[in-house]
């Protein structure tokens, strides 16, 4: 039971980090995709099902506040969670390279899908500009933020598992 409360708290925490806290630390106009880091770390430690659910709820929260069509972010985050969940079988708490690569490529996939659904289909074809000004800075900034946030999520997960009496390998 405790862990579900913690999961929801994590989602809201990430949402607040992304929309409010990091808006004070913008680098070239972008904020890191904290929610994506959460989804990747859930996918890596717990597998596809948990990642899909996290993506669903976090994406919906984001959509509720900002999108006109509620559900788009949720779908994209779920897809990223589904894909990265495959890597759960390689989970090793001491391996930080694989999650870093996952965050980096996950952000790329998410941004590309976001560009295609939100911009390309609306007739905005200047891909180079978006790639240089939004996608690339976001990928690197998210990777940077993940260096601090991924260990934090790992630690929270460990504590929760311990308090529930489930030993986390």
């Amino acid at each position: 039971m405790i862990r579900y409360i913690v999961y929801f708290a994590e989602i809201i925490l990430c949402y607040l980090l992304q929309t409010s806290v990091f808006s004070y630390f913008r680098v070239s106009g972008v904020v890191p995709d904290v929610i994506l880091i959460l989804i990747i770390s859930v996918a890596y430690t717990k597998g596809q099902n948990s990642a899909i659910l996290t993506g669903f709820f976090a994406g919906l929260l984001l959509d509720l506040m900002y999108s006109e069509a509620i559900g788009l972010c949720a779908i994209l985050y779920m897809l990223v969670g589904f894909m990265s969940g495959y890597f759960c079988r390689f989970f090793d708490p001491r391996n930080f390279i694989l999650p870093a690569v996952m965050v980096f490529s996950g952000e790329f996939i998410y941004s590309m899908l976001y560009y295609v659904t939100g911009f390309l289909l609306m007739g905005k074809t200047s891909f180079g500009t978006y790639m240089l000004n939004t996608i690339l800075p976001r990928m690197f900034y998210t990777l940077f933020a993940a260096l601090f946030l991924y260990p934090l999520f790992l630690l929270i997960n460990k504590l929760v598992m311990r308090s529930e009496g489930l030993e986390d390998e």
Partner: protein
Amino acid sequence: MDRGRRRRMAARRRHDPNENRIMLLPKHILFILCFICFVIMFVSYRFPNAVKPVKNVADMVISPMQAGINHVGTAIFGNRQKKAKLEELEAENEELKSRIEEMTALVRLSNQDRYELEALRKLYELDGKYSDLPKVAARIIARESNGWYDLFTIDKGSADGIEVNMNVMAGNGLVGIVTEVRKKTATVRSIIDDNSNVSAMITSSGDNCIVSGNMSMLKNDGTIEVSMLPKDSKAIENEEVVTSHISDRYLPGILIGYIRNIRTDSSNMTKEAVLVPAVDFQKLDEVLVITALKEKNEE
């Protein structure tokens, strides 16, 4: 746990007679949730009012936290900037004092012009200037989170009399327009957003044009795009651009920015230019919402 999943899958492969629960594989969950999302997407797009109560609930939970973070953030960063700027300000103060002397002389001159202007304005019944319109001050508590659009959330909503399509200003320049209202907060689309189009007018010549956000130009040098300027327009560099009378959502006469780089566009039919916004969007913190709508104003 992945381990649990694998065990269950293995159990199914062995056709274990005890395992007769319906299996939900990740791809099934993904498919079901995606379907739900598509339904929500369709409903929220076609019937925006249907999702309003849900949005209000989410807003009531989230926005107090955002406002709190914002409070702390401005306290910390405001103080740091204050210290750094103190010396700069002292030097500037000296300079400004001497400027005041010059200015008072100028004011006396321009006062005479003002009386003349007021008299003329009465004559033309142009008294509905935006400076007389009711305004509500609001604080920006969150920005659109993904770096693609330039939307932000302000801490005033329908409870404070905010409505969709109200104009938002900062200082004396146009910031954007309210696109969505919840109980305690509202979303504003700024004029530098990629999807923003404002019908505008050059002050001196009265030529109409369109001011639209353009992310690639904005990232390069902080400017946005002006198009559809008549080919015979006599607009000159650095002239003021204000919102036009023919706009259906923006009140007339609000300063948008200053025009530059006027040139004939590729179709050779109209002119295009770039616009330097009057508002510094990097340092936007507090805004003013004009609580009068264009349509109502004209009634």
